[in-house]
């Protein structure tokens, strides 16, 4: 069973790839952060195409809302954006380009050569958020609690790292 590829997929993937390439190649870090927001927003659109509405909402809230604001704050606190253009890349450009191109070509060739996918017979339902919540409260209870402890630890760690030492 092959999924019908809609035109929304092509538009979204074009936006994703273009903004990702701009993200890794632009000189101004602030513009890079803005293109990261665009890219992650389009990834949320891809999630909607794949019947993962809750994940799309979480993606918009966490990445587009929180992580990008964190990045922009960090950029504004650390860089002086206006007065000079700094070289943003190191001298590994050609080697990295070769490595990444060969990785992409190899991965895509492997994917296209694999024909023994065990395709799902029926479509996913449209009450995915409900099922997801039930799973999180029953079967995946322990990882859910562990991830909340991890987030708490990360929050405390970030505050402890970034606060100014009293002299």
């Amino acid at each position, binding site marked *: 069973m092959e999924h019908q590829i809609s035109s929304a*997929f092509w538009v979204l*993937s074009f936006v*994703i*790839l273009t903004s990702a*390439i701009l*993200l*890794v190649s632009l000189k101004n*870090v602030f513009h*890079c*952060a803005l293109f*990261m927001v665009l890219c992650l927003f389009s*990834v949320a659109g*891809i*999630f909607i195409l*794949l*019947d*993962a509405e*809750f*994940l799309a909402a*979480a*993606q918009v809230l*966490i*990445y587009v809302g929180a*992580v990008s604001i*964190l990045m922009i704050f*960090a*950029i504004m*606190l*650390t*860089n002086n954006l206006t007065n000079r253009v700094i*070289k*943003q*890349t*190191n001298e590994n450009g050609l*080697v*990295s380009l070769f490595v*990444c191109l060969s*990785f*992409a070509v190899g*991965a*895509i060739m492997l*994917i296209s050569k694999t024909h023994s996918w*065990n*395709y*799902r*017979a029926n479509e*996913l339902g449209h009450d*995915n958020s409900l*099922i*997801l919540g039930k*799973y999180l409260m029953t079967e995946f209870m322990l*990882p859910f609690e562990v*991830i909340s402890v*991890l987030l708490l*630890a*990360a929050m405390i*760690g*970030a505050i402890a*790292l*970034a606060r100014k030492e009293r002299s």
Partner: protein
Amino acid sequence: MFYYLALAAMLFSIGLFGVLTRRNTIGILMSLELMFNAANINFVAFNKFIVTDGLTGQIFAMFIIAVAAAEAALGLAIVLLIYRNWRGIDTEHYNVMKW
């Protein structure tokens, strides 16, 4: 299915390129987010098209998002600390942990 996986592979390679070539630490962190998102697209695509019981792929992708958020917060705190100590966040500035 193939198109989603190919999109994720290309996004991952672009993120890898960014991680390898950026001098700015925040640029490296942003490229890292791209790689996380490529992995997430893979998980959700496999969850939609391949036989699994329930929504395991989506739950895994949600945990990845949470871990990535924690990683971003900690990474940016470390970046601020580095900036305070070395007055710059390019990767050549802090080489005290090299031998």
